[in-house]
């Protein structure tokens, strides 16, 4: 079993003038694993990265890198000694150095390598003699990634690395990076606003809210088994509809629910307090499948075109609003009623 590369135990961070920045953070990451941090603005994502890098001191708790204590209330190992490379959102390329000199910045006399191994896949091998001020934002970002990778870090920290790239490059680069990380056995923690980006690249996803890590799990579980409504909404589109439990089997963790969408049965993963009368059931747009033959009807109140599909907003008879992805050749007018059926794999109740 591979050892923990990064381990954070009950870590808290305070700034004198701002107050609490991170509260009771605990997580683990093994060698070769990639994690993403999701969360709203000012939730503490970047602060967590900066604490791992050693730019900020922790108020309490501990951070270990390869089982070595690097941060605690009394200990702060300098960032340059951590073997942790940081890719900043604003690239932080050195303006007085060429692209090649930027990439080779971490080299010492003893420690050199062929930078083309990284430059070619990142498509920056033809701009090595230029200065950062002479290349585009996307190229600057690739240079920043190459510069970090050639330093052979144990852990790579990326603060919204794709934020300034166009969609196609972003998609391509995120896939390339994931493959690259896996082939090189590189571990990384990435901050992002985009759940799709996080799901595509990560083995683990952490969701931060109000300075706390509310969930740290696999991308699949973050999407399909969110622990809070906040995680549910942050990890993808969805609606919460009122529900009552008709029957529940605690042993097999299955339940049958009365919902505005009719009776829905299935397994559940989280603990349920059966003494409560009302619950909210999470319905993802892919849980509702358009079916003209179905007797369940809902009124189209809004629709957004996404090329291959429409995102329809539907109003149920109960007045609840739900969403559904429907292939774009099914072009229904706003105000019309359409039939659908429910295909819920797991019950997610709050």
């Amino acid at each position: 079993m591979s050892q923990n590369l990064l381990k954070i135990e009950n870590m808290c961070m305070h700034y004198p003038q701002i107050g609490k920045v991170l509260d009771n953070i605990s997580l683990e990451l093994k060698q070769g694993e990639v994690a993403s941090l999701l969360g709203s603005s000012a939730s503490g994502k970047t602060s967590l990265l900066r604490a791992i890098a050693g730019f900020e001191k922790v108020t309490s708790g501990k951070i270990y890198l390869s089982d070595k204590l690097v941060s605690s209330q009394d200990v702060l190992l300098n960032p340059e000694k951590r073997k942790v490379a940081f890719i900043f959102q604003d690239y932080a390329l050195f303006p007085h150095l060429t692209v090649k000199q930027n990439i080779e910045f971490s080299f010492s006399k003893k420690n050199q390598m062929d930078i083309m191994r990284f430059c070619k896949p990142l498509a920056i091998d033809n701009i090595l003699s230029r200065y950062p001020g002479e290349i585009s934002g996307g190229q600057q970002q690739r240079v920043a990634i190459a510069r970090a990778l050639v330093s052979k870090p144990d852990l790579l920290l990326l603060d919204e690395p794709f934020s300034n790239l166009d969609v196609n490059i972003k998609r391509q680069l995120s896939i390339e990076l994931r493959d690259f990380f896996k082939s090189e056995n590189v571990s990384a923690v990435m901050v992002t606003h985009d759940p799709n980006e996080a799901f595509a690249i990560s083995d683990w996803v952490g969701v931060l809210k109000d300075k706390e890590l509310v969930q740290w799990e696999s991308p699949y579980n973050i999407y399909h088994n969110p622990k809070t409504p906040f995680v549910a909404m942050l990890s993808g589109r969805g609606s919460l509809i009122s529900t009552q439990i008709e029957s529940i089997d605690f042993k097999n963790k299955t339940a049958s629910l009365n919902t505005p969408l009719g009776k829905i049965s299935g397994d559940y993963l989280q603990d349920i307090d059966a003494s409560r009368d009302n619950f909210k059931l999470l319905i993802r747009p892919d849980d509702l499948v358009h079916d003209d033959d179905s007797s369940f009807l809902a009124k189209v109140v809004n629709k957004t075109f996404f090329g291959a599909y429409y995102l329809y907003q539907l109003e149920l008879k109960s007045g609840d609003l739900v969403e559904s992805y429907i292939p774009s050749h099914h072009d229904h007018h706003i105000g019309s009623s359409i039939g659908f059926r429910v295909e819920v794999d797991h019950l997610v109740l709050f």
Partner: protein
Amino acid sequence: MLNINKISDRFSGNFAKKLFVYLCVSIVLAPLLLNFTAFTHIDNDIWNHLISENILWQLCKNSLILCFSVALLSLVLGVSLGAIVAFFDFPARKYFEWLFIMPLSIPAYVFAFIYVGAFEYSSPINSFFHQYFSFDLNPPKDALYFTAPVLALAFYPYVYLYSKNAFQRGMRKPLENARSLGLNPIQAFFRCLLPLARPAIAGALLLVIMESLADFGAVSIFNYDTFTTAIYKTWFSLQSINGAAQLSSALSIFAILLIYLDFQKQNRKSFASKSLVSKDQRKRFQISKFWRIMFFVYASIIILISFVFPMLQLLYWAAHHLQNIDYRYLHFLSQSAIIATVAATICVGLSFLLVLIQVRSQNTKHKFLIRLSTLGYALPGSILAVGVYSLFAKFHLTHLAFTALITGLCIRFLSVSFNQLQGARLQYSDRLSEAAQSLGKPVTQRLGLLHWPLLKNTLLTAFLLVFVDVAKEMPITLMTRPFGWSPLSVRIYEMTAEGEWQKAALPAVFLVLLSCLPILFFIFYDRKKST
């Protein structure tokens, strides 16, 4: 059990930084605190005299009006010249770019005696105007409206240099942004570019205000009484060094207040917004022929009155005393050069480290302490000299006269290099340093690979400014110089003290030439770099 990590961290990081900062602040504050101890013996006669006859209030008012007027005039001249050089192309712009710095080579007291001497009743210029236009140019010696413009001519290059550097660090994009948001060029300049360049301009204005506050030579030539002249008079006329020290302490409180206000404002705003400046950003804007001529005429007039005319007048006077040149001038010159080089090197080195520590420090008290170490600029040189001398005497080190001289000069001029470097350091983001750190570079390598290349031009500018200031400085040099030393500024003092302004022109020309050397070196270096 010993925690090795904890101990090594303390010694390698914060502890060493704190020790360095406390040491610097202690050295600067020690002479000032010695002045404050003068309050243990209040001289009632002097304070009654100053307060009952309303003299103190009048002195404060005069000083404040002078500071405000000089700052305003320097601001208008410095920023306008900095802006036209940074943003527009006009005939001879390349020459004006460095000519505007040249007035720095002329001390304010030399400016004052040149203008008083050139326009006095019997002068050829005044006689010419009197004869042909029936108009007297003879300056009213006690008038503010003559003192302030002359001081502004001596001090505007600080504002020019700082603002030009700020404007040249990629202001094109913010200007274009402001234009795209509906602002015309003038609105965009005042609402966007000027606030962006504020840290640099504020630093320069602080220098101008402190120079004006501490000036004795020029204001006494114009017979304009300020707080500083009162300190000198209390000391020399009323024979009360204690009273002078008390007045000086009051002046240092005012300086601390100024520094605190500037610090508070800068601390609340973050200007480190960009890490890259593209060449495109440095391109100058195209303007019509009319404006090209207007800018050329404006630049020519300023250079004429701030450098060409004073230099011609000095040379004219000096030509009448050429027979006085002998081997002694080699000594005067070399002593001035040695003092200025040593003091400037130490000031720039200390400022470099203090600025790097201050910018990354998150401790407000720590930051303010560093800012406090630049306090010496507001203090009259002679009071500082007494403080430094008392300090050395207290530790029985009076035989180290050269060290005392350099200490006094460094305390006085640390602010010059500090402000210059702080403005430049705030122009690039902390992320660059953090990126280098995360790529495994320890502090020594970050200094060499990152901060040095990015700041070396500013370091050179800072060195140049301190060198010129130290070469021109008179009271500290006069009072703490080693036995047998007689640098040029002291020689000028010896002449002007006897009212022999024309004789003072010869050492003044040498002093100006000495001050011009580093400026010309800087210009040559800057051009070579550009090509």
